[in-house]
């Protein structure tokens, strides 16, 4: 089911009210225009990228880098289990993932320069600090390089908005120096698999059928623009433009219709926002979308009602990981790998699971773990990645890498390289300056 604005509206960026009006008059022509054509040279190893953005900072020690021999005030309460990769163990919270370790590689020596959520989020998604300039999200770089695939935007955010903490959102969520035209297009997916496009909230009464009547559409957009102006919103041009294209194209609409999937397939991903979003990501990739970022959108139950702090487990770290977060992730991630693999898509779809940092190896006063940017994990599968490897190593308690740290800039450079944005293209776009590909992965 595709909705058009049941949630509070969230824009993923855009342009001015004036340019919105201009766009409204030229919507059909504007679709697909203004984007660089995907270079016709060598095909990229990753035709598509799915980033599973584990917002909040998942604990490396309690998931992919357990330390069973560490002192009790570091180790945590979970047992370890072997994986299919010789010598590599995970905690017992990831049994399904462990059985599929031949399909992915784990980096245990990630290190960020920032220990606060929005700042580290920007570093994690762009490779750079927010100041003095906000650099583009890796997805925006790939999107600019590859352009639209038919009516679908090239860069999707699946989740419940731009990741944020209490004071503010991640600055590096979108186009950055490449411009807002390369921001992600936000689609929300419920645990029931219902899609919703919040940017169309103000287009009251608009349905996918009615939107095919361009005259009515323009009239509705005019009315919506006046509402937007009254509301002081000025950045909706591009998202409406993309939404129009999406709704007007049956093939594009179908990408969001999870009811076309077998019940068993939907069940396998789990009846959770994250699980169904992963399934929707697979459908988008199947239709040729080059970049999908699935934002973890579960919550820490006792922190705040209606909050969305993801993996930020300052209290109840162990209980939340064991009861909620890890079972949800383990199920959805395993289902996604299996599904992509069975459809022959994994070999050219890069799937990266990572957060903005890890959590303190030393257990806190609240019997939990705090932010820790000095050492964390990322998990890489498909799309040109050599699977079954454990790359990098942390010290005996998980405090710091004992091998050369791998930074978000290196992660982003590797993602873009595998997606076909080679060094020359990056230089021409003036992005990811100084970044190098993680050679151990590819």
């Amino acid at each position, binding site marked *: 089911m595709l909705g058009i604005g049941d949630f509070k509206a969230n824009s993923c960026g855009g342009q001015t009210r004036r340019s919105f009006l201009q766009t409204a008059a030229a919507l059909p022509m504007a679709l697909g225009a203004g984007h660089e054509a995907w270079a016709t040279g060598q095909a990229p190893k990753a035709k598509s990228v799915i980033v599973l953005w584990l917002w909040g900072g998942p604990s490396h020690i309690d998931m992919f880098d357990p330390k*069973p021999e560490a002192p*009790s*005030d570091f*180790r*945590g*309460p*979970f*047992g*370890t*289990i072997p994986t299919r990769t010789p010598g590599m163990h995970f905690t*017992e919270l990831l*049994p399904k993932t462990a059985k599929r370790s031949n399909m992915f590689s784990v980096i245990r020596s990630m290190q960020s320069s920032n220990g606060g959520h929005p700042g580290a989020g920007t570093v994690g998604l762009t490779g750079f600090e927010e100041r003095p300039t906000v650099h583009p999200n890796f997805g925006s770089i790939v999107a600019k390089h590859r352009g639209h695939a038919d009516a679908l935007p090239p860069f999707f955010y699946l989740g*419940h908005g731009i990741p944020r903490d*209490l004071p503010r959102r991640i600055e590096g969520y979108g186009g950055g120096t490449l411009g807002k035209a390369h921001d992600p297009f936000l689609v929300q997916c*419920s*645990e029931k698999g219902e899609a919703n496009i919040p940017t169309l909230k103000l287009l009251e009464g608009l349905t996918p059928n009615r939107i095919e009547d361009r005259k009515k559409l323009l009239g509705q957009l005019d009315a919506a623009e006046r509402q937007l102006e009254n509301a002081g919103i000025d950045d909706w041009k591009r998202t409406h433009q993309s939404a129009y294209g999406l709704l007007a194209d049956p093939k594009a609409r179908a990408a969001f219709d999870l009811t076309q999937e077998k*019940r*068993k397939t*939907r*069940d*396998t*991903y*789990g*009846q*959770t*926002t994250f*699980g169904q979003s992963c399934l929707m990501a697979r459908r988008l990739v199947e239709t040729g979308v080059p970049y999908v970022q699935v934002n973890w*959108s*579960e*919550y820490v*139950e*006792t*922190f*705040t*009602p*209606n*909050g*969305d702090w993801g993996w930020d487990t*300052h*209290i*109840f770290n*162990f*209980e939340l990981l*064991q*009861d*909620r977060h890890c*079972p949800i992730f383990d*199920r959805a991630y395993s289902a996604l790998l299996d599904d992509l693999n069975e459809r022959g898509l994994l070999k050219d779809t890069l799937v990266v699971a990572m957060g903005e940092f890890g959590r303190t190896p030393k*257990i*806190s*006063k*609240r*019997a*939990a773990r705090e932010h820790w940017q000095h050492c964390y994990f990322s998990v890489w599968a498909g799309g040109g990645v050599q699977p079954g490897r454990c790359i990098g190593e942390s010290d005996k308690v998980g405090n710091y890498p004992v091998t050369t740290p791998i930074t978000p800039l290196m992660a982003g450079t590797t993602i873009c390289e595998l997606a076909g944005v080679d060094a020359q293209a990056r230089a021409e776009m003036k992005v990811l300056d100084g970044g190098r590909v993680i050679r151990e992965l590819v």
Partner: protein
Amino acid sequence: MRALALLILGSLGLSLSAETIRLTHDGTNKRDPRYFEGGRKIMYSFDETRALLRLMVMDAEALKPEPMFNDANKHQLNAAMSPDGNHIAFNECTGNLTAHFVIRRRDDRKDSFVKHGGRGGYRSPVFTRDSKHVLYCFAETGPQHIWRVTLDGKEKKQITEGTGVNNWPSFSPDGKTLVYGSSRTNTYEIYSSDADGKNVKQLTDNEAMDIRPEISPDGKRIVFTSMRDGNRELYVMDVDGQNQRRLTFHEERDDYASWHPDGQRIIFVGEREGRFDLYLMDVPAKGK
């Protein structure tokens, strides 16, 4: 209808089917089911929305859940009912970083709160058998301990000692024995002690987690959750840790077991095809 059939069978003294009975059908994420009022009612919490947990209650026969309290904007979960039925204790969150542990008098909804230093979280309340105290879990200085307070939230006393995360306290019917889970030695294991925390005995010992123990109404058995066979399943053992055996065999998750007051059955949360519902199953006596 199924519940009614079960009730009739039970009242006739007929042996209950070993087949597991599904009690809810909405599939939402659920946790912590508990029988109360002698088995006539069931309470549990569930994900009402993506971002809100709600405490629910339903008649054990009609099986029509409704909110326990008219508090639509508060997380409420992890509830325990006092044996005399006069109080309910639960965890509540009303806004940013505001976690409360509430002890509520049921007749006039007078609330008492427990105060600890720091921005920690409360867990797993259980009332003493005389209904005069509440036990709960809280981490104040590093380890998470089991604490005891009076019904007005005062006279706070730490029950457990040492390191690790201590959680899920459960009392024997005579109130003299406490069973709980703890990571004090390594992974989560199940321990028993006197009600005051003395005379600790370790009941389980393996490399996987053993969590959420609950003593049966007759005081002879303990049901618990374990990952020992690679999946989250339910197990039962004698109260001294002997005769451990597996109860569930589904490839998905079985968790949050709690005894029916008849001591012959457990209610639990089962994950089936990615959906979570409450189930009621027999716990055959040893050897059956």
